[in-house]
């Protein structure tokens, strides 16, 4: 099945499912899946296609939730405008984080971006004076308002379709517009052989900054939606649990190939809800899963089909 066909049938299936689900809890799980889809697709663009080892993805997500929330709580910006402005703010943050990465080798990019991730919670906790809400975070982020209608957290069906639309637009833009186009070619060239790409006229700085900015933009908007949907955001958004979950989505799903990370996001959001009762053990289970996923399916399930199940099986037997 071609990628386009897979995409449209997926969107159609979820659109129809939205009419049938009926169960609030299931809606909630799928809404989270749609939001996480945007996050991992943004990460896939940077890591899977450009080959930049950025671990600042949850920084963008958290910054989006905070920026959007702070704009509407502290400055009374209407919800849709706050979402857009929040996204733009995070895009600029992505550009800023991208700048030093231009001069760093891969492993140092990973260290630098992860350091930003580790530093952000304390900044948010210390930032009460600028309106971050300190360690309790932002309470009562105004809900989304479209066409004069307010969509509260409990309005699952509107949230379902809203986040489905946002995810569908992002996925389409990344895998069917950016990747096959000129940008995507430059990205893959830089990933496959940076030296060669540059010698063929690819402006490495320009394309890497574009990648950081685009990835941050979409992820920031996902964060904004997340905050508006839940109505709350705390520094815990940068905790180990969400980070491990996102890592797991990438490693189980597989980078640089539609619909790899999306499958990963689906498996993990659903799996996480199933494990909801396991409490503290869930974190441990997630960690073990990351390790197992990397060992058993080093390229993610998306690459199993072409290589057969041979690799995973060999590992199993060894």
């Amino acid at each position, binding site marked *: 099945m071609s990628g386009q066909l897979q995409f449209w049938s997926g969107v159609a299936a979820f659109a129809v499912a939205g009419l049938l689900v009926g169960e609030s809890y299931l809606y909630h799980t799928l809404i989270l899946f749609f939001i996480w889809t945007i996050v991992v697709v943004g990460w896939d663009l940077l890591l899977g296609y450009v080959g930049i080892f950025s671990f600042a993805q949850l920084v963008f997500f958290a910054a989006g939730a905070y920026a959007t929330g702070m704009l509407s709580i502290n400055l009374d910006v209407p919800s849709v405008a706050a979402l857009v402005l929040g996204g733009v703010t995070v895009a600029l943050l992505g550009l800023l984080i991208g700048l030093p990465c231009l001069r760093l080798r891969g492993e140092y990019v990973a260290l630098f971006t992860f350091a930003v991730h580790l530093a952000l919670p304390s900044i948010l906790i210390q930032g009460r004076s600028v309106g971050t809400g300190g360690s309790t975070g932002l309470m009562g982020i105004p809900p989304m308002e479209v066409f004069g209608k307010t969509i509260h957290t409990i309005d699952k069906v509107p949230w379902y379709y809203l986040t489905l639309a946002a995810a569908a637009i992002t996925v389409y833009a990344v895998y069917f517009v950016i990747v096959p186009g000129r940008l995507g070619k430059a990205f893959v060239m830089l990933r496959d052989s940076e030296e060669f790409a540059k*010698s063929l006229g690819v402006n490495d700085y320009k394309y890497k900054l574009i990648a950081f900015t685009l990835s941050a933009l979409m992820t920031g908007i996902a964060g904004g939606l997340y905050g508006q949907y839940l109505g709350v955001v705390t520094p815990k958004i940068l905790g180990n649990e969400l980070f491990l979950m996102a890592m797991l989505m990438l490693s189980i799903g597989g980078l640089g190939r539609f619909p790899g990370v999306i499958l990963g996001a689906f498996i993990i959001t659903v799996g996480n809800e199933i494990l909801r009762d396991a409490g503290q053990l869930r974190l441990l289970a997630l960690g073990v899963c990351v390790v197992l996923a990397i060992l058993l399916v080093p390229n993610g399930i998306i690459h199993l089909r072409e290589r057969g199940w041979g690799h995973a099986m060999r590992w199993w037997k060894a």
Partner: protein
Amino acid sequence: MKRFGALLALNDLSFQLRRSEILGIAGPNGAGKSTLLNVCGGSLAPTSGEIILEGERVDGLSPYQMCHRGLGRTFQIPQVFASMSVGENIAVGRMFGGGEADATDIVRFLIDACGLAGRRDERAGKVSLMTRKMIMLAAVLATRPKLVFLDEPLAGLNKDEIQVFMDLISRLRDEMDLTFVVVEHKVRALSLLSDRLMVIHFGRRICLDTPEVVVKDSQVVDVYLGTEFDA
């Protein structure tokens, strides 16, 4: 001049290129040949000195700018875009190389000239060494350079492949009006291919002349060729 800390990798090395010539460069391992190409390709900035292309200074530009000025290069370790098809590898050279817009047919011409027509749809990561080198050459030429630096293009090839590659370079020089600088250890092949030959040693030029003269030069024989080379 190029300095790495205390090491002078290129020391007072200067030369002029003539339009449409093939200049061969030889020299012992570590002589600074790849360093010279990295400086000319923009991967390294010279510590001092100038590079002038058609009257304009281009030293210190970044690699993509060098490419847009008409300076092409290949790498000692063959590079390709492994996840792309052979055809795409060459098409992206034209796409980003900043050549004229009317160069639509250049990709097809190069694919044919470099013997890649039958492999157009294969993944570039899976092809043989000779094919990798052909892809790298065709991609660079698709950027429409005026001047191309090749770093050990013949290394690892067998006798027949060397012949094919050398014939191709001569032919492309004529048909595309190119100037080539070819770094190579295979001096016998290089002296057949080149109009002039330069030998460098410890970053210094020790000889630059026609191949016939260079291979008889006593200093060249001393430091590089040894006595077994009789031309």
